[in-house]
């Protein structure tokens, strides 16, 4: 992995002079001013000299902006926090909600753990596979859906549960509700 040096801020994105401009982290890879502002908010949560603590949040924010977490984004986060790229890379590969490969516009994670399985979690996963025509860990050819098997989301009482794009928890997913949810995805 190559180390990246931060380049000076580009001044193009700020139309009214108030918005924070995006930053080019090298080789044309940019993160928006809005994302960087959120980075700063996360960094401020930790004591001085502990910027590294914000790495999980910053990686999640970068993924939110890009849709997945390319290597350049991981290196950009490392550069912003002043930590070695490998330190950010270790975190990105350890925690399973980071997507190190491109995913569909809608990432569906269905829990198939024991408590969920007792209430239809495995069957819901099977139903989704049939419905979308893909296996677990796959993306539909049109790039719309990615289907993943999840590990305990702490919502076993709501089984079957589906986590949409790492953000929204959908509960009691009967076949009818799954159909409705998929139709609601643009």
């Amino acid at each position, binding site marked *: 992995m190559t180390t990246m040096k931060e380049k000076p801020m580009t001044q193009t994105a700020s139309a009214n002079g108030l918005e924070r401009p995006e930053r080019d982290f090298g080789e044309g890879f940019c993160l928006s001013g809005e994302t960087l502002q959120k980075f700063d908010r996360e960094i401020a*949560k*930790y*004591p001085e000299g*502990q910027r*590294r*603590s*914000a*790495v*999980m*949040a910053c*990686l*999640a924010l970068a993924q939110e902006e890009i849709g997945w977490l390319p290597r350049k984004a991981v290196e950009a986060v490392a550069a912003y*926090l002043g*930590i070695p790229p490998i*330190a950010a890379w*270790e*975190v990105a590969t*350890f*925690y*399973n*909600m*980071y997507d190190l490969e491109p995913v569909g516009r809608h990432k569906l994670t269905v829990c*198939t*753990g*024991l*408590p*969920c*399985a*007792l*209430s*239809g979690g*495995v*069957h*819901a996963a*099977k*139903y989704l596979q*049939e419905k979308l025509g893909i296996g677990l860990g796959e993306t539909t050819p049109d790039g719309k859906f990615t289907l993943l098997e*999840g*590990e*305990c*989301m*702490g*919502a*076993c*009482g*709501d*089984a*079957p549960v589906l*986590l949409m794009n*790492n*953000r*929204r*928890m959908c*509960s009691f997913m*009967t*076949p009818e509700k799954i159909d409705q949810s998929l139709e609601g995805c643009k």
Partner: protein
Amino acid sequence: MAILGAIQPILTAGLRGDALQGYGADAGWRLADYAGRGGYAALKRILAEKTPPEAVIAEIKASVLRGRGGAGFPTGLKWSFMPRSLPGDKYVVCNTDEGEPGTFKDRDLIRLNPHAVIEGMAIGAYAIGANRGYNYIHGEIWELYKRFEEALAEARQAGLIGENILGSGFSFELFAHHGYGAYICGEETALLESIEGKKGQPRFKPPFPASFGLYGKPTTINNTETFASIPFILNMGGEAFLNAGKPNNGGTKLFSVSGHVNRPGNYEIPLGTPFARLLELAGGTRGGRKLKAVIPGGSSSPVLPADIIMDTTLDYDSIAKAGSMLGSGAVIVMDETTCMVRALERLAYFYHEESCGQCTPCREGTGWLHDVIHRIEHGEGRPDDLETLTHVAGNISGRTICALGDAAAMPVQSFVKHFRDEFLHHIEHKTCLVPKDVQWAGSGFHTITQQVSA
């Protein structure tokens, strides 16, 4: 999910009726609501009266509040380990990284009563001499991470956390840190590593967090429900809390009931309540079917057959005596439609996926456990497989840095012990004792495709 029932509630007391009704109806979590229920009275009183920290800790000790995250360690004792007079930074950390299969109580606490957690943490900080804290929230419950941040903003705005709280001279900054998908971060030292921005790999203990915790500083870590119990204890007295439960098992506890029941959800009941009563509150087994087995304290606790659990009361000591653990209070109910081999296969898969990879016995052993159980489940079991399972589980137990190794081994040992015949049937007949279509029907997931092989 919701808190669906309660007997003499403490943690959910005074929550408006609609908050208990179920999903979406969760008014009552804001600061004004909490204050209306008497919230922050304990913190305000302690700060105004400058109650000695020792007196706060003595009250917690008197309550016999035991850690609600799973280990059941006495909270007051844990707080007393902190070197309060030592100069320098100290931290208080809340563990809301709830990802033990079956456990979903802290999610409801953050959803319905986040300020009780904030007040409990502030009181904890005061008692142990910490000026900064973090609440580590499971990444999958993102909406509630956002809610907790909103509750923090309210508390900060009202001067209940931050610099010089209510002019008392005591300062306490509190922040939320989110996880991003790693069960192991529920282990306290892995959680600390994670806050430091590293992989969540557990540390060797000792040193314990009270002497070497977050950023190497003295740190106290408690579960969400533990902190949420603190304001009541300071308001009503330790003895009142103790009396709400039974001797050596103070207070009420949230039980997360999942699996084959009619009303899965959270129930707040006094420790010492019979299991049969909780099952009744949860609407009984689905379709009134026969109870087969229960995992009483989250997926890591040993499974108990129906006849044993039906005679057991729900408290730390009674469940231990019955051969399992109260753990996090996650009650996974399995009725007669359950194939115990398949159930164990699901658990083994989880632990294999979630092993952090640091210790060889766990990293390799959980893979072996899953492989062997998987092949038994899929009709490829070998005559000596049960021996292999017992052997591998025994070689993980007690040979790893953290408790995940034991957590992976215990279900295997207890399933094979109590349901040996079912495993043998699988190996001999290459199929489940419980027919697949019966298992399918038991899950309650109705679909016209009727894919019984699911």
